[in-house]
């Protein structure tokens, strides 16, 4: 199928999934142009310096996806379809309804082969293996990859926010938009915010703002075991608050929707997620504080955003930097975990003497 037809088919299928609204023909075309120039749209050798170059899809692509973040599964499949690869998807045992809906809406020739078990020939025959999941999952698959295969591991990550300023309704709304989608379980979900200035006042203002917001649909039905862990965690922090100067906790009333914890110690602490927001003062040496997690930082949300602070975020190890409030909305063109999204799925063939 030609590239234009594949794009049209993707746009039609994306219309069935509410959060794929960005996927228009124009946006996809712009994305391809940005990453691969004319390589995909014009399947002839393209001038490349004094030589020529042409791309071919690495195919088949095996996508091993996890159930917690359907976004990642669909993004990976869409990239594979765009470059023209054959796609195989190993789904989690419980399946992913969004993937089923999207795939059903694709023309037959673009549909991936899907299974909840790894089919025997997949690992051997795939030219690219993409894995989304825990570090353990990534480790297990990495041991089975052949040196000739391209292996793209999207393991667990930490995201955070850095704020210079006071908490106003806009920032509070931005933090809510960053924290609450996917019940804070995504790799783009911030686990804590470092604040310059009066961090305690910031935490109070933030909790006041969250309290004013209407009950949200943010808290999906959590099982009782998860709720138990969250409650035990909050009670533990109430105890800490009672005995530790500067620590305090504000929480949603009568439910586990959200909690804001102010901790004056910049040291990183456990966060059970599910609507748990840590506000901490900016450490004197942020780089040192974040050093243990440097290689695993995904997104840093900034307020305000300017070149100086962007440079600061890059030095801390961020793979993506954006404005507070946009952490969950990477553009179509983003380099997931720092790699070219489409370029990782093609083989560049250099042609000399043409």
């Amino acid at each position, binding site marked *: 199928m030609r590239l234009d037809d594949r794009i049209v088919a993707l746009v039609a299928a994306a219309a069935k999934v509410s959060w794929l609204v960005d996927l228009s023909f124009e946006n996809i075309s712009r994305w391809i142009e940005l990453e691969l120039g004319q390589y995909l749209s014009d399947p002839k050798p393209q001038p490349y310096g004094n030589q020529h170059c042409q791309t071919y899809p690495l195919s088949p692509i095996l996508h091993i996806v*996890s159930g*917690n*973040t359907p976004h*990642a599964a669909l993004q990976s499949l869409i990239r594979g379809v765009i470059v023209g690869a054959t796609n195989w998807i190993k789904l989690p045992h419980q399946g992913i309804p969004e993937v089923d809906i999207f795939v059903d809406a694709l023309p037959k020739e673009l549909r991936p082969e899907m299974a909840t078990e790894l089919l025997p020939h997949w690992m051997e025959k795939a030219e690219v293996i993409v894995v*989304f*999941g*825990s*570090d353990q999952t990534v480790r297990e698959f990495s041991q089975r990859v052949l040196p000739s295969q391209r292996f793209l591991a*999207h*393991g*667990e*990550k*930490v*995201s955070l926010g850095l704020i210079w300023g006071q908490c106003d309704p806009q920032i509070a709304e931005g933090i809510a938009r960053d924290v609450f989608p*996917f019940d*804070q*379980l*995504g*790799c783009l*979900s911030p*686990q*804590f915010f470092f604040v310059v200035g009066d961090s305690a006042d910031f935490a109070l203002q933030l909790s006041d703002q969250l309290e004013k917001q209407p009950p949200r649909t943010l808290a999906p039905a959590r*099982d*009782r*075991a*998860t*709720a*138990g*862990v*969250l*409650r*035990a965690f909050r*009670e*533990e922090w*109430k*105890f*800490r*608050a*009672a*005995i530790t100067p500067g620590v305090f906790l504000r929480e949603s009333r*009568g*439910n*586990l929707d959200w909690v804001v914890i102010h901790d004056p110690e910049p040291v*990183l*602490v*456990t*966060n*059970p*997620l*599910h609507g748990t927001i840590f506000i901490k003062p900016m450490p004197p040496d942020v780089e040192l504080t974040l*050093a*243990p*997690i440097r290689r*695993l930082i995904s997104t840093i949300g900034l307020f305000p955003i300017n070149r100086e602070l962007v440079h600061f975020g890059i030095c801390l190890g961020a793979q993506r930097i954006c404005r507070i409030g946009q952490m969950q909305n990477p553009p179509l063109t983003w380099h997931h975990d720092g790699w070219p999204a489409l370029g990782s799925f093609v083989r560049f063939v250099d042609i000399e003497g043409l």
Partner: protein
Amino acid sequence: MKYSGNSAIELEILGFLSEPAEERFESLALSIYNYQRRANPVYAQYCEYLGTPKQVDSWKRIPAVPQIAFKRSDIRSFPVQETQTEFRTSGTTGEGHGKHHFPSIRLYEAAVQRGWDYFRLPRHRSILLMQHPEDAPFSSLSRMGAILAGSEPERFVISQDGGLDFSRLREQLSDRHEAVTLFGTALAYLNLFEKAPDFDLALNPASMVMETGGFKGSGRDVAKSDLYEKLSLRLGVAADSIWNEYGMTELSSQFYSRGVGRSHQAPPWVRFQIIDPETNQEASPGKVGLLRIIDLANLWSVLAVLTQDLAIAQPDGGFLLLGRDPQALPRGCSRAVDELMHFARG
């Protein structure tokens, strides 16, 4: 400084343990709360933070300290210099040890003994799958074993290095005509079965088996029904003769359940509530929630403890223990910072 003993409130609690009277529970609980709020500055700070008045009108309104607080602070309702005994949690969660301090273990001993008798548990000769208290001075379980069985070393069949002392076990099991009580952690039983697959462990059928402790921190998870089937098969006792003791370092009293699928019951000086994790209020009957325990024998720390275990209240007055779900909090692709820190520390 040594504990002088005979405090009026301690004597009152000891009296209650000897002759429990339901109608006195509440007033005694409130007296203990008042005492602890005065004597325990950390608890007083906690109550103040929660906004709990100095006088409350029901045992249900006594603030419960989260179990993990014993790891975070010194929860002590007596002067530090009077400390005689310290029990520690196993530290298997990697967050350090929880500590429970005592100026005297007289109340603790009484709670263990009276609890055992309250449930009419047999006073057979005991064989303890645990270390001797001298080898494990901070283990409340070893101390409990010694309180029940005496501290003769031959009763304890786990050696100082944590291994099973097979010759001692063989010796202890030599008289199969005598009913005994075999008491150990679930993990100790599994280790025993695995390390000695051919060892004849058959007990006299009138014997009792007591298991406790679960598999926390071992990376293992065996269903209770499977465990009891194994115990029954290898030890030659009916499943009904297998009991579970549910206790914790942070408390002084124990709950017991018999066989599989039955509720845990408290002695009269212990009550519990099931807390709805969403609302932090008492859960409606039949709902799963966190177990909150009020133990009148816990005079020297705090009498009310919010555990991290899930349970369901039962119509028979007990609770069905669900424990902790090791799979709780699936994290998606967000990485736990504490794991990273642990990794970074190597």
